[in-house]
């Protein structure tokens, strides 16, 4: 009875976590750039009972010994980086990426108090990657009259030459499908401000989300080149990678499949609860053997 109760409790806990994940996906259905999370189950072995060789009885089909299961647990957590639908907006700095790629973004490293960490004569920074979103122009203290392209939180975006995108203060930019940023200056000439750096994702499970639509390498990655690859024209064409201006990427949550999964998990939870209450009834029966 104890084994039943423990096994059911363990499995219900796993199902509860799965339910939480589904609820999180559904809640974020309308969040720009949200990538759905999924996981699955695996069986748990509690113990192997070795039986005495004398118990090898005639007609026994399986090897001597009893492998006792202990329920199910969650395993195989992954973030599904499938493309979300693109929604058209009329904002020039709403950028979305088509295909398995990410922008390169620089964030300052802060310590636990939130103070920026100094490194050498500047600030310590970390290179992370972004899926796009509502970018903006930020003013720069040391270059008045110019503005720099940043994410909505103010992290600068990098170009293929590892520089930032700097344009004059009143310029309007066009960004084409390969990420080249152009603007028109006062003389009417079209100037290029650089090409946005795109990195193609080779190993989806080795990048970890940081929030704000940002991703960093998972801890334990030996070499960044195994996980991310610079996108040039050949790669962009082969993989169908493009930058879209005036567009925002919606979440990739499919409500139908989430609801179906929700129903199955709910019913499994119900059955496990039934098993647990049956175990409880059995314990009650044992207790009532002798009043």
């Amino acid at each position, binding site marked *: 009875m104890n084994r039943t109760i423990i096994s059911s409790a363990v499995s219900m806990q796993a199902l509860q976590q799965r339910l939480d994940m589904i609820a999180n996906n559904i809640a974020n259905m309308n969040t720009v750039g949200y990538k759905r999370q999924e996981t699955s189950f695996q069986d748990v072995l509690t113990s192997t009972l070795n039986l005495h060789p004398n118990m090898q009885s005639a007609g026994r089909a399986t090897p001597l010994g009893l492998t006792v299961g202990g329920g199910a647990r969650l395993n195989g957590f992954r973030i599904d980086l499938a493309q979300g639908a693109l929604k058209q907006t009329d904002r020039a700095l709403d950028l979305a990426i088509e295909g398995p790629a990410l922008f390169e973004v620089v964030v300052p490293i802060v310590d636990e108090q939130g103070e920026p960490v100094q490194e050498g004569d500047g600030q310590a920074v970390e290179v992370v990657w972004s899926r796009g979103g509502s970018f903006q122009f930020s003013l720069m203290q040391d270059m008045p009259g110019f503005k720099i392209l940043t994410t909505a939180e103010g992290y600068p975006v990098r170009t293929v030459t590892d520089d930032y995108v700097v344009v004059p203060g009143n310029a309007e930019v066009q960004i084409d499908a390969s990420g080249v940023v152009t603007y028109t200056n006062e003389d009417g000439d079209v100037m290029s401000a650089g090409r946005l750096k795109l990195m193609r994702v080779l190993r989806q499970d080795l990048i970890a989300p940081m929030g704000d639509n940002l991703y960093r390498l998972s801890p334990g990655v030996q070499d960044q080149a195994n996980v991310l690859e610079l996108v040039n024209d050949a790669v962009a064409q082969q993989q169908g990678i493009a930058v879209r201006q005036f567009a925002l990427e919606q979440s990739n949550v499919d409500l139908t499949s989430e609801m179906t999964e929700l129903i199955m998990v709910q019913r*499994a939870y119900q059955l496990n609860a039934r098993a647990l209450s049956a175990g409880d009834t059995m314990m009650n029966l044992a207790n009532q053997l002798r009043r």
Partner: protein
Amino acid sequence: MIRGLYTAASGMLAQQRRHDAITNNIANMLTPGYKQDTAALRSFPEMLIHLMGPDARSGQPAPQIGTLYTGVYMDELLPSFTQGDLTETKKPGDLALISNIGVQYNGQQVAFDQSGKAVIDGQVIYQPQAFFTVLGADGERRYTRDGRFHLSETGQLLSVNGEPVLGVDGEPIEVAGLTLDQIRITENGTLVVQTEAGVQVLGQLLISRVDNPYELIREGNGNYRLSEGAAQPVAVTAEDQVAVRQGYLERSNVDAAQSLVDMMTALRLYEANQKVIQAFDQTLDKAVNEIGRV
């Protein structure tokens, strides 16, 4: 003590163990590649019963009544290897195995029952099953139906537990410089990639054919291992009806309705045994308290 008291107690214990096994099945209803277990009970030990005292007429020793089973225990957990349903996940790393291996006996095709067995001329024949082969941490092979694979950083194909998946050459499969969505896995487990030069073969998954799947020992985490002394399984051939489907996962083959009915039966049998013990208790109560009353 009355014999039947211990028999009923062993009955309660056996039903409890059976209930545990059914609960484990229900708990793993959503586990991909899980094969359900059925508990098999066995009665033990046998006892030869004689009448008490010598025979009244002839004076010979007491005649036999017959054999009595004085206990029951859960002997083994029999796995059921029926094919689970396939569910589409559209992930290039998710593989499902469809296994329907036929066997010839005396020139005739054997028809297996639902549990994967056939009894012909007193011989028990088991239906062979196909499994993916992975390399366990101890260097021994493990077998699994859970086809959730991914690529490591260096391009090694790994199972969901992080074990390398073996190819037909017995070595882990390595695909350097490629992503899973570029790789297509055909029905016989061959990994191919489309390049400008044409279709390039990267390797082939080792799909092991286990002739007697009842000899496998469940290890947990979706893996099975061979029992000691069992022969190492060979790879499936083209004649075996085994297919690999990319983008699909095999669901658990647990039948929820049947499991619930079995669970209710186990509970009621537990209760019935409990009533038997209570009846014996009342009988002993009479013997102890009323017969000897002064």
